[in-house]
């Protein structure tokens, strides 16, 4: 880690992150980290269980996104997603 002055603290990302997370995420396209298949989140295979919700790649079956919910907490794991693409009208 360098000690330069070129970075800001994480709060400065609030603007761009709020623009991104305002999107309807089921319309977002994701690239599977396992098989590189590309598709909208809405096309993922959903396994909704009492322990958590698993969104699986329709191509290879690996978990793209995992969500669990505990008391006053959510856990969200995107490690099965290599990239999220959001289409915008400029």
């Amino acid at each position, binding site marked *: 880690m360098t000690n330069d002055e070129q970075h800001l603290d994480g709060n400065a990302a609030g603007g761009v992150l709020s623009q991104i997370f305002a999107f309807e995420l089921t319309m977002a396209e994701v690239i599977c980290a396992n098989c590189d298949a590309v598709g909208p989140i809405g096309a993922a*295979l959903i*396994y909704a*269980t*009492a*322990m*958590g919700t*698993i969104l*699986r790649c329709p191509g290879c*079956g*690996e*978990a793209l996104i*995992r969500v*669990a919910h*505990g*008391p006053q*907490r959510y*856990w969200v*794991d995107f490690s099965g997603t290599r990239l999220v693409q959001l289409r915008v009208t400029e």
Partner: protein
Amino acid sequence: MAKGFFSRGFLGRRREPQAEGRLPPGQYLTKDFPVLSAGPTPYTPKDRWDFTVVGAVETPQRWTWDEFQKLPREPITADIHCVTKWSKFDTTWSGFSLDTLLAAAKPQAHYLLAFCDGGYITNLPLADVTNHKAWIVDTYDGAPLPLEHGGPVRLLVPHLYFWKSAKWVRGLRITEDDQPGFWESLGYHNYGDPWKEQRYQGD
């Protein structure tokens, strides 16, 4: 107020008398056997099935289905406790003690990852699966273990929450480090003792 206005649902779940001392905190007793699957139900034909013990072991082991069936078998009766709060008493199983499997492999480390068809993994300390505390079971309630409950074989570790009793298990990887499994890496407790109500990280 009209008699019968309140449905049984408003009465809450009453503790059955036989539950005293056997029901961990926060659990309710059920006679059903709920199914929880975080993915499609996998199926491996028995002629392609094997079970392995690998990783940090002196002698890696592999059994075919027929070889596995020749291992010493024992009956197990146990209470089971799911983190989603149901418990079931006196479940009956038949299978093979992990003591037998691990004695053949001679582990050289203190943790394991159980790995399964479908990609599920869960982690356990070796101390929690030895000395008659864990089994690989292929029979439930006198019949072959149904696919939806993990057949042909599942892990059975009844003293921990039931997500540790991995369905469709195909082997054990002995590890130097305690590596979190599928649910353990998604906010659930690393160990999962129902008597300490270790449901989530930090419990």
